[in-house]
């Protein structure tokens, strides 16, 4: 059995309702997310998959992960942008139809984190694509990722 | 009256056959050409006899054609060709003379056996000569097969023509004029083709020995 839910679930539920009504205004209750791994150590990916688990269940709020950027509204970019992922990241951004958002997940996305200065690292995400929201943490909790999405959706 | 007529026919056809046999016996192309010439002349005579007694008018024309074509024109051409290839003696034929004579004999007997129903059937006085004519046909066929020299084969073929003509004359008092002319035309054409054929052989092999031909195959 996984460990019982911590007492802070209720503010989590409040948070999710916020995402719900924020998203409605911009994307009308349906938000398609395309997750882009620009060179992350997959720590953030684990947390992102946590989003679709029964505990967080982002699905119920219309947040849906899609296969192709053509179908997506929001790009969830993880990890520092490595040299060979620089062009693909930009291409993915171009392939996404407007209106589109980018959320950079994890410290690596913002400051290249532990990989800073590595020979393979080309730079942080915002040097390549305009980022609407950063999510700190290495790796950030699913709730934190949701909050990031919320700020991205809210600001637009 | 009939018996004289049939007697003459038998004599004529047996003479024709004998000339055929000379071909087998003698060596040397000139002998063959003479034999052929005389054979044609006798054949023309037989045709005249049948025309006279069987009172078939157009046979006279046939006889004249025979005489002219096979009696004069073709032998002269043959001699010219023979001179051209100079005195090439007939090489050893496939079958030596003795066996070829025996084979000729057998063939004549076979001719008799084959034409017996014909003879029994037909009521014409000349029916007696038919087996002889068939014999000549078979013998000349044998000549064509067994001789190596292309020229001899040509003469053999012409004798075959004579045999057939004789068969026609004796069997049914000659075939309709048109067919007769057709046969003559064929004979002439055949002869011309063979002439060309022989020149070619001579060109390529410097000899008209037909044996060389199988070098062409492989």
């Amino acid at each position, binding site marked *: 059995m996984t460990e019982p839910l911590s007492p802070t679930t209720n503010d989590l539920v409040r948070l999710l309702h916020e995402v719900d009504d924020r998203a409605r205004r911009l994307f009308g*209750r349906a938000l*398609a997310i395309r997750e882009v791994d620009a060179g992350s150590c997959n720590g953030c990916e684990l947390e992102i998959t946590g989003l679709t688990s*029964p505990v967080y*269940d982002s699905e119920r709020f*219309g947040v849906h992960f899609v*296969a192709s950027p*053509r179908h997506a509204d929001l790009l969830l970019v993880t990890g520092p942008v490595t040299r060979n992922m620089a062009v693909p990241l930009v291409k993915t951004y171009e392939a996404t139809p407007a209106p589109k958002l980018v959320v950079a997940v994890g410290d690596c996305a913002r400051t290249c984190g532990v990989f800073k200065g590595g020979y393979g690292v080309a730079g942080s995400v915002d040097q390549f694509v305009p980022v609407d929201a950063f999510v700190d943490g290495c790796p950030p909790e699913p709730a934190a990722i949701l909050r990031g999405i919320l700020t991205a959706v809210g600001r637009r | 009256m009939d018996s004289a007529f049939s007697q003459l026919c038998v004599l004529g056809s047996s003479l024709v056959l004998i000339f055929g046999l000379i071909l087998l016996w003698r060596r040397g192309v000139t002998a063959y050409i003479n034999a052929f010439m005389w054979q044609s002349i006798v054949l023309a005579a037989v045709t005249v006899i049948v025309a006279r007694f069987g009172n078939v008018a157009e046979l006279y024309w046939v006889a004249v054609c025979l005489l002219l074509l096979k009696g004069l024109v073709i032998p002269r051409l043959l001699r010219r060709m023979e001179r051209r290839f100079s005195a090439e003696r007939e090489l050893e034929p496939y079958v030596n003379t003795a066996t070829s004579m025996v084979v000729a004999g057998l063939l004549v007997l076979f001719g008799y056996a084959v034409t017996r129903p014909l003879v029994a059937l037909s009521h014409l006085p000349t029916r007696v000569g038919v087996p002889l004519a068939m014999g000549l046909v078979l013998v000349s066929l044998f000549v064509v097969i067994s001789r190596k020299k292309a020229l001899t084969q040509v003469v053999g073929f012409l004798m075959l023509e004579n045999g057939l003509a004789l068969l026609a004359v004796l069997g049914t008092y000659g075939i309709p004029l048109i067919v007769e002319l057709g046969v003559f035309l064929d004979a002439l054409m055949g002869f011309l083709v063979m002439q060309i054929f022989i020149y070619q052989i001579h060109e390529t092999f410097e000899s008209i020995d037909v044996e060389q031909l199988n070098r062409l195959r492989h």
Partner: protein
Amino acid sequence: MVAIIGFALGVSQAALALLLAPGLVGLVRWLKARLQNRRGAPAWQPYWQLAKLFRKEVVVSSNASWLFRAAPFIVFTSTVAVALLVPLLLVPLPFDGVGDLLVVVYLLLLGTFFLSLAALDPGSAFGGMGASREMTVAALAEPTVALAIFALALSAGSTNLGQIVARTMSGPAAVSPGHLLAFLALFIVTLAETGRLPIDNPATHLELTMIHEAMVLEYSGRYLALIEWAAGLKLLIFFSLLSNLFMPWGVATGITASAITLAVASLLVKLVVLAAVVAVLETRIAKLRLFRVPELLSVSFVLALLAVTSSFLLR
């Protein structure tokens, strides 16, 4: 006068089908979510999704030709045309004369044909892969569908949908074992044609395993909305075919208010039941390896063949 009413009813029936389609897809997803004890998106989530997609920008590949832009409209039109022909609520269907079961099958094939062509157009490997697999599955499913039609036509004496439904409703004798076998065969074909598990996983992200999804990777904005809507409508059509051709009880015969409401109610119940069956099925079994799919389709073919022979024997 009667024709106009019939025409209006026919069109309204198709409109109802159009409206219900995204809901049906949402319902299946919601049921699957509940089975995975997730709260899952509500059944009307696809409506939001379509609304959002209609407001999104369209990004089209530079390699694509006019066919890429025309295909979504052709797919949508052919599926709506089928919705006009299929008897959802009313049996003496005004459009019955226009097309029978064969026309329905070939109209759906028209949609698949153009969707596959559009998948090839942008020139990406995924589109080619999706198109090739989709056409393979469609081609292998054809004989099963044809034999199922043959079995139905045998007992109903005609391939016209109205007649088949009327004949099956006329009495219990009409429902022979042949019908049951044909139902099972058509059910497997439904899973194949609409891209459900075990043939194709609608929720996968791994391009190599997709069949239907791989073809529409290139579409975005309103084109994608049309295609998703058409796919949902196709699912609804297959479900309604399954329910009305084999269990037609409740389909209205007269045009009275009570008969219509009864018909609508029975339709909804049947759709929910079928959606539940599909959801349970998708949660229970895993996806078949692509080259085991023909074996599954051959099973459905044998079922259809048995359906035909049994209806032959009982004739």
